[in-house]
């Protein structure tokens, strides 16, 4: 049973690398601010810095505070999480790694009658609701501030500053991917004592980097070109707003989704430009996925454990 959680964590870390590099540096690569090779190296470095400097709080929340961990809970939860994440990536459905892992841990814990800390769970659920809204308002404020300051500069200067800002916001997202996303994956196995913390940090960051090198190229091309074709000005406000928001929640030890924060940020900037620019249908689908992902993970783990025991 012992290798199963580690193998599942390896798969999830690779998947995070393949998908989340585009969250962080897709815009920069699409804008040719930085080459793919340099972007991936930068991403890997900041993921490692993120987990080293700020990963422990989120790791404690996920690995210790939610459910009383044992090897069965860990094995089933991470295996189901890895499968759900891989299937959703394959089917191109947006799911949050955090939601799937936390849904799985809670489902397994409940099925085995383990001590589930509903207080912590409620705090996490609350942070999932608040974080996209916080990103919504943060992006809105950043966009307004840019309009008041940056817009007054000459065109060429704005172009240069936006390049620097886009790279800075990409680095923040890379950092929070380490401090929050990777911490969510590593928290359960470190706190269960399956792996030494230092090795987990290095190995985890390397796997995320490997996922970025091997699997992220196509996704980055699609997302990078797609987003930048819209508007780098709004793209920065949304990404930076989301990055600041994830950074704040990471400091509070809350495992939250970068993707949902970026969606919140994009919606905020879209609202500022006019409600017509926001696709309500798409937001409904995202909201449905937001509810379905943890629910499905919970039910799958619960059913598997109840069937097996």
């Amino acid at each position, binding site marked *: 049973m012992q290798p199963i959680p580690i193998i599942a964590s390896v798969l999830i870390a690779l998947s995070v690398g393949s998908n989340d590099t585009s969250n962080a540096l897709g815009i920069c690569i*699409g*804008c*040719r601010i930085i080459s793919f090779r340099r972007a991936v190296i930068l991403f890997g470095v900041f993921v490692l810095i993120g987990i080293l400097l700020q990963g422990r709080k989120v790791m404690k929340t996920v690995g210790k505070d939610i459910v009383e961990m044992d090897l069965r809970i860990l094995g089933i939860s991470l295996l189901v999480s890895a499968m759900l994440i891989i299937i959703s990536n394959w089917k191109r459905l947006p799911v949050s790694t955090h939601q799937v892992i936390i849904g799985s841990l809670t489902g397994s814990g409940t099925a085995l009658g383990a001590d589930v800390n509903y207080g912590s769970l409620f705090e996490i659920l609350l942070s999932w609701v608040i974080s996209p809204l916080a990103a919504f308002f943060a992006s809105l404020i950043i966009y307004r501030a840019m309009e008041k300051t940056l817009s007054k500069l000459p065109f*060429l200067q704005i*172009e240069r500053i936006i*390049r620097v800002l886009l790279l800075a916001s990409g680095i923040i997202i890379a950092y929070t991917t380490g401090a929050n996303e990777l911490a969510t994956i590593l928290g359960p196995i470190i706190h269960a004592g399956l792996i030494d913390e230092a090795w987990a940090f290095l190995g985890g960051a390397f796997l995320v980097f490997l996922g970025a090198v091997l699997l992220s190229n196509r996704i980055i091309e699609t997302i990078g*070109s797609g987003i930048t074709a819209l508007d780098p000005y709004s793209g920065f406000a949304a990404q930076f707003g989301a990055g600041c928001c994830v950074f704040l929640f990471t400091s509070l030890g809350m495992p939250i989704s970068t993707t949902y924060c970026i969606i919140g940020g994009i919606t905020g900037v879209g609202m500022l430009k006019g409600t017509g620019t926001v696709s309500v249908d798409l937001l409904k689908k995202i909201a449905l996925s937001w509810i379905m992902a943890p629910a499905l993970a919970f039910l799958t783990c619960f059913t598997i454990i109840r069937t097996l025991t």
Partner: protein
Amino acid sequence: MVLKDLFLGGKKELEVIDKMKKHMGFLCSACTTLKAAIENRDKELISSVSDLEREGDIVRREIFSNIYEGAFLPFLRPNICRFVEIVDNALDVTKDAAIEYTDLELDEETKDDCARIADISAKMCEMLLAAIETLSGRADLREKSLAIRIYEKRVDEIEFDLIKRLRTKEIKNFWEGKALSDFIHDLTSISDLIEDASDYLQIINISLR
């Protein structure tokens, strides 16, 4: 290296802006030369307009090549390329007008109107050149765009009167009439294209704000 590129970069963009000015400068010279050719009935100058158009083509290719190599954010590139294409079209029609002029014998009144149109087009070029400079400076682009629109309106008024008068003029044969019509059409198209280019410059300028 990455940070050096990022903070000290912008050379590619400045190079493109400089080449856009150079390209625009060729259009200014072409319009001024055409004006001089019409005013002085000096058909020797026509070949200079063709030379300027050829040099403009070379600069246009260099601009596209710089943009392909990564100058400017991809979001801005289509509008910058469109701007350069419009300026290049203006150079083409200036050359066409110059070539058509070689076969024409204009009466004094028509010659004066055509020279006025060429003169206004040259002034519009200078205004557009100043507008390009605002991309790297703090000057207000809107004032220049407004001035270009006013100039264009003046060309339209001269064109309206000119065509009205030319319709009463007796034409000896089809080809003489066609050459005159094509010349007037190309001459007045220059200002239309400069106005279009000015609009694109305005789009480029506001697209990052």
